[in-house]
């Protein structure tokens, strides 16, 4: 019997001004990355509520990546600085709870960095695939 190849489910939140445009540029340049990545457009990385990320995990996402403008380049001047703190604290907490750190990531991708977007996604999917299915967050409250 052939085992079905494991395909991770990846949610990518991209800010409208830099990273979403970077993802579009990756498309324009036909740079491949796995279809496991599904992008959700937000105005700014600072719009991403930790609850969205937790919700994605809880609904079965294996990895969540948040992309925004590089620090200093935020369309709204300071949004990504808040993102940086919020996500640093959230991810550190998930790590503390024993959730694999490779499942979460923040990456700054500019509108010109189509190649970086594709490379980041390839790398992230690979890292998450290596971990396998995301069970821990779901099992955190269910000791078997």
């Amino acid at each position, binding site marked *: 019997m052939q085992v079905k190849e494991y395909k991770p489910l990846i949610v990518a939140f991209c800010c409208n001004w830099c990273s979403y445009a970077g993802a579009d540029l990756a498309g324009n340049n036909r740079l491949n*990355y796995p279809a496991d990545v599904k992008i959700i457009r937000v105005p700014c990385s600072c719009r991403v509520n930790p609850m969205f990320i937790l*919700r994605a995990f809880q609904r079965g996402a294996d990895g969540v990546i948040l992309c925004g403008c590089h620090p200093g380049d935020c*369309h709204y001047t300071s949004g990504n600085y808040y993102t940086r703190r919020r996500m640093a604290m959230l991810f550190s907490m998930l790590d503390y709870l024993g959730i694999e750190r490779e499942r979460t990531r923040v990456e700054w991708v500019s509108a010109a960095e189509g190649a970086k977007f594709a490379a980041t996604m390839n790398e992230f999917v690979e890292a998450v695939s290596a971990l396998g299915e995301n069970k821990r967050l779901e099992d955190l409250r269910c000791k078997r």
Partner: protein
Amino acid sequence: MQRIGVFVCWCGSNIAGTVDVKAVAEALKSEPGVVYSTDYQYMCSQAGQDLIVQAVKDNNLTGLVICSCSPRMHEATFRKTAATAGLNPYMVEIANIREQCSWVHKEMPIGTEKAIILGKAAVAKVNLNTPLTPGESPVTKRALVIGGGIAGIQTALDIADAGFPVDIVETKPTIGGKMAQLDKTFPTLDCAACILTPKMVDVAQHEKIRIFSYSEVAEVKGFVGNFDVTIKKKARFVDETKCTGCGDCVDKCPMKKNPNEFNMGMDNRPAIYIPFAQAVPKVATIDAGACTMLKKGKCGLCSKVCGAGAIDYTQKDEFISEKYGAIVVATGFNVISMDKFDEYAYNQSKDVITSLEFERLTNAAGPTAGKLLRPSDGKHPHKIVFVQCVGSRCENCAEKGKEYCSKICCMYTAKHAMLTRDKYPDTDVTVFYIDVRTPGKNFDEFYRRAVEEFGVKYVKGMVGKIVPEGEVLKVQASDLINNKQMHIDADLVVLAAAIEPDKSARPLATMLTASMDTNDFFTEAHPKLRPVESPTAGVFLSGACQGPKDIPETVSQAGAAASKVIGLLCKDKLLGNPCIAGSNELMCNGCSSCERVCPYGAITYLDKEFRMPDRTTKIRRVASVNPAVCQGCGACTVACPSGAMDLRGFANDQIMAEVDAICK
């Protein structure tokens, strides 16, 4: 329940080559709310758009999902299509199945599967979309310019020439700013007064311009198009409407020994004074700290000699309130204090001066009537050393100097050196430099002329120590090219002191909720594309308050700021972006978290009365978002612990629905 139509675009083979568009249209048909689903070769073509309009009419659609190229490409197009079909333009969502699907994946089954998921997410979102209408706000057709230097003057003139009234607020008794203190201007060497004073007169005579001199901005409220500003007119103890500027009072005043700010303290002025002959307004001002009448009630001489009866010792600070549609900041710069650089002996010798002091020494209206004489003994200096980059480009001396390059020093030093050699060929002039930075039209040519035609000695190296000894200043410096240490007995040393934003800028920025960098220069909305706008809507930047600038740059930025202001004031109403934050007052805690993260100062708080379930009332502090100021970043929505703050168009439940659709 929404009635959603799904429209899958082939984009020729761009999408259809990797995505089975028919399968996508078919799959999305069974999603909740979807009542119509189809595909077409080019959705963005006129035929494609007509197809959408027809489908809306035939099926009474309330929301549209377009599976096509990136929303950055055609979102605006399809919103217009929706409007044509009689829908609210914000009832459209795009599933990006080209750039983020067909173009990055190769295999049809994989592309199709992903396109369906992206389509489902868009459907899930549209289900929760609500019609949005951009807010409108009126525009007060009057501009405020803060600062009356060349930047403020130029901006005010340009705005006023376009027909809008402008007020200039200047903290000094006269407009003119730093440029009025300069002698000649590089690289053309025209006299600063000759080109500036006519502009000052234009300002004074312009029927659309009012000058509030000796005044400060005390309070700013409101937002773009609707600022409420309180201006504090400081008591000058002279009735501006009566004073003719004849100067009789100035001549008679017995309190003559007060440092003359206009001449950088190198000579004295009386307690009642007019800063300089071409001052605008040409009105006397009494220095309350120096006047014996005001301090002790004795004297009153100026009042006695004033034929116009303009002296008023009882004058009080006056507060004026005015409405403005736009505010231009033009607060300019100052040279930094040389106190912390006493290796250059600025505090030990009068003959060590800053470049701005040198300007006054060479200016015909200056303390020496334009003759270059040493401040200590009035002798003509025969050996002059110029030191560049004093306090500029300092890495770790934040309390001493500045990390940035002050930009103008290379050129004015070349100018000073050249003019000195031109007027006094017997004077030996040495300039110590780290780098000579002359990017600008005719700038490097100018510097080369100083060296090649005027014989100014440029030495690559830095002065390490200056020791006053007797009549001379012993200058010890390095000459890096010749690898030697130099010792010069100079008569005069001129320090190219770094420049810094005026001290009034920081409190002003707070009032305006305009952001600043760590050096207290105002931040622009975008460093390349919006260089004369502050991120705060309706606040514009002119001149050196935004960064070091020379006169040509300042004037062009002043004009650019004016054109932005004119563009704003031309509008009768401002249409906002409807995708903005809004607070649910029933859930708001009034905790101020959202206010603290808002980059635009769009959030204020109101005390609001609420009816409680037990029929009592309760007054609570709740957040209120100003729709004209909010730009819709969403930072507040995450800072809000109770979830009261949400973002229209990207609401919590909408994004959550997208997440759910993708992760299903």
